């Protein structure tokens, strides 16, 4: 009878494996060090409006697909991390996909807040910045209404905005958007459950991007801060793959500080009070009732999202008043939904198709 054993690691084989790992690591690091500058954002664009640190961009399509006037689509990204994730590389660009689907695409770049922006509130962001960007596009094109696409925290903002400015919005798309902040699997909510947010903001002023990075990476620390770098030696086989790796790495750690007051309100109203579900949420002097939203709404979520659990996004279905509500699940994670090859082929065309049917 052969006795089975759980692992069989002979020293000579381990030595060879280690030597092989070291060889690949050395070669990989050599490739990384020779990459030079990493460009972010690949699609040509024009700045069409700006105030403070915010810039509103209009993206140029590679070719005009037809001469039909499209309802413009404004992308509202989260305040955390940078929006170039939606336009990371030639073959990994959600914006390029939307342009190819015939959309007229605009995006708000929030910039990097500093201490002078510490007292920006959610009211300033939602009823101020977003509203003025919407108005700028409406004025530019002479249109009454535009389409809105909110991503992650930007999706939550877009819901609040649409609930109170629906006369300016024709269709709403939310992507990986947290709605119910207190689902059983929400690690982010758990991690801030006992954090005294007033003390934190009063102490730090703006909330350092480094703190947010640490929080996000600590949701899966062994994979995201450990295994990833061991895997890297097998991934960066050539300059292209090395560049892909470093561009993603750059994005992950390119985390702007958060304006203190807006951060305080967001944590208190959404994470602590779960305002969209519990009710009673107010942004500035406006009461937010998702039931007021009755325009067509497409809710895109990722089934393996560890940051925004699918149930958190799906909660929207029972809250809005839209008769035309649809969901689009994506079999992947929170980041993969922007950059994976699979998402490039499915998500932008699906959004484009859904909007075109309603334009």
């Amino acid at each position, binding site marked *: 009878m052969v006795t089975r054993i759980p692992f069989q690691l*002979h020293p000579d084989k381990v030595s060879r494996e280690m030597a092989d*790992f070291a060889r690949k690591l050395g070669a990989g690091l050599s490739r990384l060090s020779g990459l030079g500058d990493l460009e972010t954002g690949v699609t040509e664009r024009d700045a069409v409006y700006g105030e403070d640190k915010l810039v509103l961009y209009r993206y140029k399509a590679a070719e005009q697909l037809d001469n039909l006037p499209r309802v413009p689509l404004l992308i509202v990204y989260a305040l955390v991390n940078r929006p170039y994730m939606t336009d990371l590389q030639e073959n990994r660009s959600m914006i390029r996909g939307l342009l190819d689907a015939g959309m007229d695409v605009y995006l708000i770049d929030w910039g990097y807040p500093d201490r*002078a922006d510490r007292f920006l509130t959610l009211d300033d962001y939602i009823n101020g910045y977003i509203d003025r960007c919407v108005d700028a596009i409406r004025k530019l094109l002479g249109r009454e209404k535009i389409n809105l696409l909110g991503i992650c925290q930007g999706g939550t903002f877009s819901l609040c905005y649409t609930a109170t400015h629906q006369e300016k919005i024709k269709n709403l798309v939310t992507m990986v958007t947290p709605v119910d902040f207190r689902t059983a699997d929400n690690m982010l909510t758990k991690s801030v459950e006992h954090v005294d947010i007033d*003390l934190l903001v009063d102490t730090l*002023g703006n909330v*350092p991007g480094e703190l947010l990075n640490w929080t996000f990476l600590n949701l899966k620390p062994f994979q995201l801060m450990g295994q990833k770098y061991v895997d890297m030696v097998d991934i960066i086989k050539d300059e292209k793959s090395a560049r892909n790796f470093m561009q993603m790495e750059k994005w992950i750690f390119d985390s702007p500080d958060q304006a203190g007051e807006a951060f305080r309100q967001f944590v208190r109203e959404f994470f602590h009070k779960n305002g969209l579900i519990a009710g009673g949420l107010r942004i500035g002097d406006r009461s937010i009732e998702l039931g007021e939203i009755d325009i067509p709404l497409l809710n895109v979520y990722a089934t393996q999202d560890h940051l925004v659990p699918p149930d958190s996004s799906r909660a929207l279905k029972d809250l809005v008043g839209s008769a035309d509500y649809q969901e689009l699940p994506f079999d992947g994670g929170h980041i993969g939904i922007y950059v994976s090859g699979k998402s490039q082929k499915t998500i932008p065309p699906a959004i484009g198709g859904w909007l075109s049917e309603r334009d």
Partner: protein
Amino acid sequence: MSNWTDQWFESWRDLLSHQPWQSTLEDWWRQFSRQGDSSSLPVFEKIAAQSHSFFQLGEELAKLDPGNSTGKDWQANMDRMFNELKQALDTPSSNQARNLFWQMPLANWQSMVSSMPGFSSDQLAAVGGQPAFDPQAKWEQLLSIPGLGYTRESQAGIQKLNRLTLDYLKTQQSYNNFFVEMSKESLDSMRERLKARVEDGAEPLKTVREFYDLWVDCSEAVYQARTMTDEYARLHGDRVNALMALKQQAAMMMDDWVDMMNMPTRREMDTINLRSQAARRTSKELEQRVEMLKRREADLTRQVTELCGRIERLSSGRSQTAVKKAPGRKKTSPKKAIRKQGAAETGKKPVNKIKLRGEKR
């Protein structure tokens, strides 16, 4: 950067025969740090740190491989291996097990704390990096900080700072203890997974990499489960709150020192920024009102122009008609004429006011 990859391979060739791999990596890393492109160093540091863990795991496994054991010995060997690692976790002075893996989230916390304003990161790292908590030693360490100023308030401030430092260290210690328990649980999970593989008839793990990946899976699973508990949420919250209280006190004292030097303080800057933001909000509201008024003015101007045109047309038409009319008939004013004409066109009773487009009544 000249020939650092050659040096890398050379050092490996020299040292592969007698290990340890991790010290090879450290030697190479020191060499590279002096020559490499400084902008790439952070990511290289991360890679080097994880490679270090990977190599260390390889070394440990090479020593503890049960593959050569016979019969049921592998189970005893494996149990011994895991028990040694668990014991090492309980020994504060031993970095063997801690450095393998579980130190990473704690080290990252320290690194992140260093990036925050409000208190010298080096000071915090110095007091926070001690493996065990010793109140007396900490008090002595903190009281050795030279006093600043000679008023009672400033002395009280320092005392408070010391007290808050101790509070933070206590929470940090509780957090570390939680992590040690979590690490032991990961080891137990790993041991069970390995046993389950045998029972399921799975092929033995034959590479360090397979072992490493299984280790990551086990650690992550335990971490996910434990960090969703109320106990963890409380520990984490307490630690963050204690750190913030400490930093707030430090920042207030810093502000006092800055004020003593007749320089602008953070409090003053916050006041200015707060007022500036309020003024900016008002300014934006006013801009929007001005825009709205401009639109109204344009509407009004257009309507007045239209009216003037119609008056002119009516006037010229009337003067032509007047010639044909009998003398002595009462003259109608141009305004009345407009109202009458409007009423004739719409069939409604004439009104005296011009209603502006978009204006609420």
